[in-house]
């Protein structure tokens, strides 16, 4: 563990992205953990594909967004987070919700605008966070949650609690002021927070070269953060980088900015055919599919990958059936709940399936 911290600190000293953690299988994962990562990614892809089908069938209202091809970013990072840690999850990070314990039926109900959705129909698609599982739902103003995560980390530090806050954000978000306010604040106060830059090459149709002149991970040092660049299509690499960032945060060494390099394989939303993306670019990234990569890794370790797929598919079928059978929200409920009437109840703890949390905290 100590070496990891040193390694990350070293990467800071040498100027952000120069030292990258790329594609190495993590030594902190058991075989079960590795299967868990695959299952989370399969579940994310399967739920999103099912939701897309329902969308085309006219059953999902509004717009539809997915994270096809980016599953490793949220799966790997969320897997490194403890129950008492807190997450602000974005719209291409469904695997994080799955790892924290949101069931696929509730996710599909959310897409369908049903009563059983996490927001009971008050907000749509991926705009949700289950407060009982330590998650805050995103808003559409994208870097906003960076400040909320920073504030949570600030509270942890003020109370000397061994906890970490984490949020994702996109390449487009780096252009807005809240990005600056958050990383600067976290740097000034040396807070236990991890920012994951989900660099998926496009902000809607705007490519990176129209978004920034300097790679944002290079800004990290200027703000007093450690910055690392990771292969965002490798769930284990994402896990390892986040785990190291979390250890640093717990050791009082401040925030980490992890740039996860990945590719948005679908349009910005279902109504976007992505004509502005060169076909070769998509083809190149298709070869680096994060799920296929994890499957190959597991096959070589003798895991029956097909069995995992079958199990996930059955779960999704049952979830879809349950979600479609659920009622729509009562229109009479539309005007209630704007204000909290009772006691303010803080966020609860989420699930944390990584075997490292089951072991005694001897490792650190």
């Amino acid at each position: 563990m100590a070496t990891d911290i040193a390694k990350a600190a070293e990467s800071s000293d040498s100027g952000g992205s120069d030292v990258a953690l790329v594609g190495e299988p993590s030594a902190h994962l058991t075989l079960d953990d590795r299967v868990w990562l695959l299952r989370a990614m399969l579940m994310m892809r399967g739920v999103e594909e099912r939701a897309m089908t329902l969308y085309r069938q006219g059953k999902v209202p509004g717009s539809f967004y997915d994270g096809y091809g980016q599953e490793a970013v949220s799966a790997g990072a969320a897997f490194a987070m403890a129950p008492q840690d807190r997450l602000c999850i974005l719209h291409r990070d469904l695997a994080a919700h799955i790892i924290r314990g949101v069931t696929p039926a509730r996710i599909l109900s959310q897409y369908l605008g049903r009563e059983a959705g996490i927001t009971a129909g008050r907000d749509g698609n991926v705009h949700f966070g289950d407060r009982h599982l330590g998650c805050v739902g995103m808003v559409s103003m994208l870097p906003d949650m960076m400040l909320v995560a920073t504030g949570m980390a600030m509270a942890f530090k003020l109370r000397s609690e061994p906890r970490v806050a984490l949020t994702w954000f996109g390449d487009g978000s780096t252009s807005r002021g809240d990005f600056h306010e958050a990383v600067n604040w976290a740097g000034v106060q040396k807070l236990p927070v991890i920012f994951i830059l989900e660099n998926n090459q496009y902000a809607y149709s705007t490519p990176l070269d129209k978004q920034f002149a300097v790679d944002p991970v290079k800004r990290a040092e200027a703000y007093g953060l450690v910055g690392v660049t990771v292969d965002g299509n490798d769930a284990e690499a994402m896990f390892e980088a986040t785990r190291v960032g979390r250890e640093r945060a717990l050791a009082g060494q401040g925030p980490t900015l992890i740039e996860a390099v990945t590719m948005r394989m679908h349009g910005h939303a279902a109504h976007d055919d992505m004509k502005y993306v060169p076909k070769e670019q998509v083809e190149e990234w298709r070869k680096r599919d994060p799920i296929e990569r994890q499957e190959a890794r597991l096959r070589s370790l003798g895991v029956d990958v097909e069995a995992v797929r079958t199990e996930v598919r059955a779960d999704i079928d049952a979830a879809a059936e349950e979600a479609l059978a659920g009622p729509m929200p009562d229109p009479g409920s539309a005007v209630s709940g704007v204000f909290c009437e009772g006691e303010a109840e803080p966020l609860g703890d989420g699930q944390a399936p990584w075997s490292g949390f089951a072991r005694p905290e001897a490792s650190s």
Partner: protein
Amino acid sequence: MTTLTYLQAISSALRDEMRRDERVLMMGEDIGVFGGAFKVTDGLIDEFGADRVMDTPLAESGIIGTAIGAAVVGLRPVCEMQFSDFISCGFDQLVNVAGKMHYRQGLAVPITVRLPSGGGFSGGPFHSQNPEAWFMHSPGIKVVAPSTAEDAKGLLHAAIHDPNPVCYMEHKHLYRRVKGEVPDGVFETPFSARVARPGQDLVVITYGAMVHTALEATAELEDASIEVLDLRSLVPLDEEAILDSVARCSKVVVVDEANFTCAAGAQVAALIAEKGFEHLDGPVVRVATPDVPIPFSPPLEQAILPSVDRIREACRELLAY
């Protein structure tokens, strides 16, 4: 009971809250070592330390956003905007993140945002505004505006205890001009209106600094008995108290220091038109600042802010109607 200025009452509420509840912390620009631009937090850092009287970076969105984060994990942040005008830089976090949180996902955001507001001292276009109506129009945010020292303390206690985001409009002009007897210790003033002076021929409905202007304007109006209703809370708006005054007096002047269009008083006037029509004996008359930025030079500023004379004249006209 102790005699305190409006400003001392606010400081006293902050101190009492910090003493009784370790979850309460203050965040803002220059509030710690310097004691705040208006010295509201003067000396608090000595008692509670720099962690709980936090000098933040110059970042209003950052202050509101991080306060939200701290609140959802159990703290009770009280944010100071150095001037209420600067809340425009934190607007997004307040309106989109804090205001919609509970409705969307049942997660309460117990933050208080202190907004030193109002003009009358040549603060110019960026240090004189009354932005309360912005937040009245945004679901999920409560808005209160004390006019007396007692209410300044009681409303601030209630705001900090409230599980929702509360914008606390503290009027700069009242800081050291208004003094009063204030109960000692922690007490809550309800988010409801107060009859500042009872009457039966006409009611002036207002809040904040304009309560004092209205009381002065109507103190000696020939033979007429004028009620002054101090709203104290704009969200929630005390409809019952407003309609009760209207039923009694039948003539209404609504005064805002804020710009005229869509001000809090416009909502009051709309409410009366809708639910108090049967009781009206004349048109609802509004006195407010015209729709211009607050100018700097004293003759210009005095020309637009509602004055004792303007309010008195409006009352006279309506009484004679």
